[in-house]
């Protein structure tokens, strides 16, 4: 008899897995996830946030196993769902999601023939699962194809896909609890057992979909609120936004301005197997150490990563909401103008306030309303009532009362400023606000040529 394998996890207790799953966990390509932090440099705000993509992959896998045991009859479906969730983050690079933005920025999309909306990290994940020798040795070609199909939504029935990606997916079910625990906050806490217990497969003729029993409405309210609070308090925390921006800027400027060749190669995805091999050799610590090495030339990358490692962060020198500007044309330009508007703003702020424009970062941040958090692009949660299936926001008394789906959005500007004391900080921040408001009004003036028709960028949660 084979001994049952188990790992002790701070969130879920014992995580059991089968021998073939353990073989995957033991591969170097999976073990590297131990060296990629789940929340990049959130440790600069929450020192406990040292958890990794490895822990989260195991946690999501555990939740998937519980959900599959409850909802799925087929052992093949169960096996594939467990494998897909175990491998869902296998393509993460240094600093997790932060790398994705840089990969997309430097990939030559036309040459790669990437479909519109297709992201480079998704392509990388698929390539790793389909072709990496560690996984090819352990999974059949058919299994690898199906795992990829489940992850990109191109294969599998609605229930299987909803377990992996959707408003009730096991990814969120794990990361809210895990991030909350490691950050030392309580915002992401909800009753996981109650949620899992109330998941149902609803069958209506040939239709099958993942739904929630009516008794699960309150725990879903808790789950949605957990998402909202984690977004506002952790994922969109000011210091986290600044540190992410510094990583992106450090790497981008390292490639474009400092002309660091190895950095350019690391982030210019060309679709080759060599690229994947090289990409998989990097993690948070190695990238930081390499940039800070003596033989890396002095420049923006080194300056920004040195600041990050010493926690000498850029500081927020400006913050505004749309309602701060009465003129709708100015509002439209600030929040809908293309990237060129932000670049021009950074240059003008740098020039007029005496900062190096490359170290001034203007960024738009969006946070979805709590009602909008109840759904994802994959749809809303269906609740099974005695009168038939209903949408969650029509069944929840709490969410029914939230009529306005207001999205919060704001513009923030960060710069390398130091203050002597609180008094100077207050004074200079007032000055920054007035000066930058003037700069924005000038740039956003209808006569300015910066009002283009390209889509506005922004961080959305």
């Amino acid at each position: 008899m084979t001994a049952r394998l188990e790992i002790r996890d701070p969130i879920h207790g014992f995580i059991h897995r089968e021998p073939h799953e353990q073989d995957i966990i033991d591969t170097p390509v999976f073990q590297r996830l131990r060296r990629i932090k789940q929340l990049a440099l959130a440790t600069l705000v929450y020192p406990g946030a040292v958890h990794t993509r490895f822990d989260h992959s195991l946690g999501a896998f555990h939740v998937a196993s519980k959900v599959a045991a409850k909802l799925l009859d087929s052992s093949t479906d169960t096996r594939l769902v467990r494998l897909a969730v175990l491998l869902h983050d296998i393509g993460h690079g240094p600093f997790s999601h932060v790398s994705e933005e840089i990969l997309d920025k430097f990939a030559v999309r036309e040459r790669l023939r990437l479909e519109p909306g297709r992201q480079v990290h998704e392509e990388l994940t698929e390539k790793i699962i389909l072709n990496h020798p560690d996984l090819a040795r352990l999974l059949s070609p058919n299994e690898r194809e199906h795992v990829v199909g489940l992850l990109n939504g191109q294969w599998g029935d609605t229930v299987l896909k909803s377990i992996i990606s959707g408003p009730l997916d096991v990814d969120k079910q794990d990361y809210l609890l895990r991030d909350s625990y490691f950050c030392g906050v309580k915002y992401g806490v909800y009753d996981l057992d109650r949620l899992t217990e109330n998941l149902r497969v609803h069958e209506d003729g040939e239709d099958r979909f993942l739904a929630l029993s009516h008794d699960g409405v309150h725990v879903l309210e808790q789950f949605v609120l957990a998402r909202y609070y984690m977004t506002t308090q952790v994922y969109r925390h000011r210091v986290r936004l600044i540190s992410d921006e510094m990583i992106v800027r450090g790497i981008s400027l390292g490639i474009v301005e400092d002309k660091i060749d190895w950095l350019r190669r690391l982030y210019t995805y060309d679709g080759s197997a060599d690229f994947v091999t090289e990409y998989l050799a990097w993690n948070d610590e190695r990238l930081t150490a390499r940039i800070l090495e003596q033989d890396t030339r002095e420049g923006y990358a080194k300056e920004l990563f040195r600041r990050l490692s010493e926690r000498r962060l850029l500081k927020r020198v400006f913050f505004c909401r749309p309602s701060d500007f009465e003129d709708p044309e100015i509002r439209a330009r600030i929040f809908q103008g293309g990237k060129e508007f932000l670049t021009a703003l950074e240059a003008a702020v740098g020039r007029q306030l005496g900062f190096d424009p490359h170290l001034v970062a203007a960024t738009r941040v969006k946070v979805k309303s709590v009602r909008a958090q109840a759904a994802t692009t994959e749809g809303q949660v269906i609740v099974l009532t005695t009168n038939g299936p209903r949408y969650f926001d029509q069944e929840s008394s709490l969410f029914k009362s939230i009529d306005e789906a207001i999205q919060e959005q704001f513009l923030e500007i960060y710069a390398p400023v130091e203050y002597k004391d609180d008094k100077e900080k207050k004074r200079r921040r007032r000055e920054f606000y007035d000066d930058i408001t003037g700069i924005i009004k000038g740039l956003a003036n209808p006569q300015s040529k910066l009002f283009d028709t390209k889509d506005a960028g922004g961080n959305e949660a």
Partner: protein
Amino acid sequence: MRPSDFVLCLLDASRGSIQGRTLLQKRAYFVSVLMGEDESLGFTAHYYGPYSPMIDSAVTQLKSLGFIDEATVGFGTVSDEGFEVKRYDYRLTDDGRRIVEVVKKANQDEWQRISEILGRLEKAGNPNYVELSFAAKAFFVLRTKKKAMKREELIREAKSFDWKIPAASLERAVSLLEQVGLARSS
């Protein structure tokens, strides 16, 4: 054209308001199909029919910028077909009308085209959101499967998108698609 400009023009060409989220999405779908823009707006199969998260996100953004108003109308009843029991109505605000003028100036051809397509839909009997939804589902199935289909086959294929199209609703859907030039019966 960015999604937010598209939504502003769509609302403007709909006399400044659209009643219901589903109607907005489906009008957006047909207009974008006839303009050849549906792919760039990322329409996918959703419970109510083809749905664009980009349009949804643009609406949310326009609301937060104060360019459109959203009003909720509750009916307190539930449709057998699972359609909205609560309706979200959208209207251009005064600031929104000002911005529309700027957008129209920069996108004159697109605005004309949107306006002309909405006129065609109006001539086809100004379909409500339920009719448009079934027509959109039928067209989405035909386009995705890339082949001519008999009515029964289309109903069957729709199920692969988790859509139910009642036979009676399909008749009206097909007629609507023919009237706007998106399908031909043989």
